[in-house]
């Protein structure tokens, strides 16, 4: 690209130099392009993208001449604009696919117009009345006192389950045998062994029943049977003598004399 093409407009070059000094003031290449576009002093919709691309390239060239380091994205944009410019100037290449140069230019114009619109909108938003600057909230806030209320939950099912639980707790006691109204022979034997030494004279078997087993008929029968079986066992051992005067007569016992 010939130099004189870039610098054919002296005013433009001077303008680019003036802008380039301020390079830190731009928020990226798009911002710079927008600033350059404004120098065209036309509606953004009527802007010449070709002219804008040229302005930008002049800017970059000026920066180079002034030995100002430009961030990479400015250079990427310069390369892209150089490409766009060549596409815009040259007749369309039928071999090339992708968007036309006009599409690319139109999109750039759209981007500039949109950025401009957002800037204006931002300014309008910031120009609105603002809370804490133009209008104000209540200054004296009354604290809301928080009170805590406990609400107890209980459903009918809970209630019924609880009751059922109580009434059937018996059912769920750890397994053990209830003491049946039966005196075991072992118990009777132990007991008899303890008292056998005191039975010197013939005595009725029934007088040796444990006190708590004498009254309830069921228990009494069980105790008689057990005590009788125990005394038979002791007779067999030879430590006790038994006698009965007749059928259904009282059974008597005494210690066997050694």
């Amino acid at each position: 690209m010939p130099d004189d093409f870039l610098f054919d407009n002296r005013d433009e070059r001077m303008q680019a130099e003036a802008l380039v000094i301020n390079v830190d003031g731009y928020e990226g290449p798009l911002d710079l392009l927008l600033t350059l576009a404004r120098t065209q002093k036309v509606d953004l919709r009527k802007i010449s993208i070709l002219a804008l691309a040229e302005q930008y390239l002049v800017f970059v060239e000026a920066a180079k001449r002034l030995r100002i380091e430009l961030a990479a994205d400015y250079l990427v944009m310069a390369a892209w604009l150089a490409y766009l410019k060549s596409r815009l100037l040259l007749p369309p290449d039928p071999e090339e696919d992708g968007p036309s140069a006009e599409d690319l230019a139109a999109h750039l114009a759209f981007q500039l117009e949109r950025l401009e619109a957002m800037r204006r909108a931002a300014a309008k938003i910031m120009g609105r009345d603002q809370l804490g600057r133009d209008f104000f909230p209540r200054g004296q806030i009354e604290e809301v006192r928080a009170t805590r209320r406990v609400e107890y939950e209980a459903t009918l099912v809970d209630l019924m389950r609880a009751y059922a639980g109580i009434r059937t707790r018996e059912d769920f006691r750890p397994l053990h045998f209830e003491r049946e109204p039966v005196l075991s022979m072992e118990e009777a034997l132990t007991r008899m062994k303890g008292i056998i030494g005191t039975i010197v004279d013939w005595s009725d078997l029934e007088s040796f029943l444990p006190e708590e087993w004498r009254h309830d008929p069921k228990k009494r029968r069980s105790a008689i049977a057990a005590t009788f079986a125990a005394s038979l066992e002791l007779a067999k051992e030879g430590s006790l003598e038994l006698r009965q005067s007749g059928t259904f007569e009282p059974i008597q016992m005494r210690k066997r004399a050694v």
Partner: protein
Amino acid sequence: MEPESLFEAPPLAEQERMVEAILFATAKPMKIAELAARLPHGCEVAQVLTMLQKRYDGRGVRLMKAGDEWAFRTAPDLGHLMQRETVEQRKLSRAAIETLAIIAYHQPVTRAEIEEIRGVSVSRGTVDLLMELGWIKLGRRRQTPGRPVTFTVTQGFLDHFGLENARDLPDLKELRAAGLLDNRPAPTLPDGEEDEDEDQDELFD
């Protein structure tokens, strides 16, 4: 020299708006002199305050004077709106629900009878809680030695549990039929542990 002094004070209605806005936004009550310092020269602050007080008369907010300071305040009858109630859901303790169940099924019932059925003593805390909830109340004294008080359930209890009548409560057989009695013991509590705690509670009551 302040430029405002060159101009007439704004109309009273405008002064009223101004004082209203200042008193609304300020963090603390303000004296007439402080208000005047914020307003254009020549404002009739005292008069405006009276106008404003009248305007808010009977509203949800009032312009109040405390000493020589003025402030907007919530109308005293609406103070209750400034309380936010947080409701915490809590399960009734097993002791409480069992006691309640026994009272519901056996009413009127004495404390001794409840204890006999539960097999453990009933803490005062439990009875108090059930009373507070409005689910049980004192019934007639039992005409037996010592004339012990009895407990019955209340209308509130019936409402809460959706019962017409305590007699509508299902009996054991129905409970079992309803599957409410699975043949497993209730989650095992070591015997009387919970109630020991309760007894301790009672000591500290």
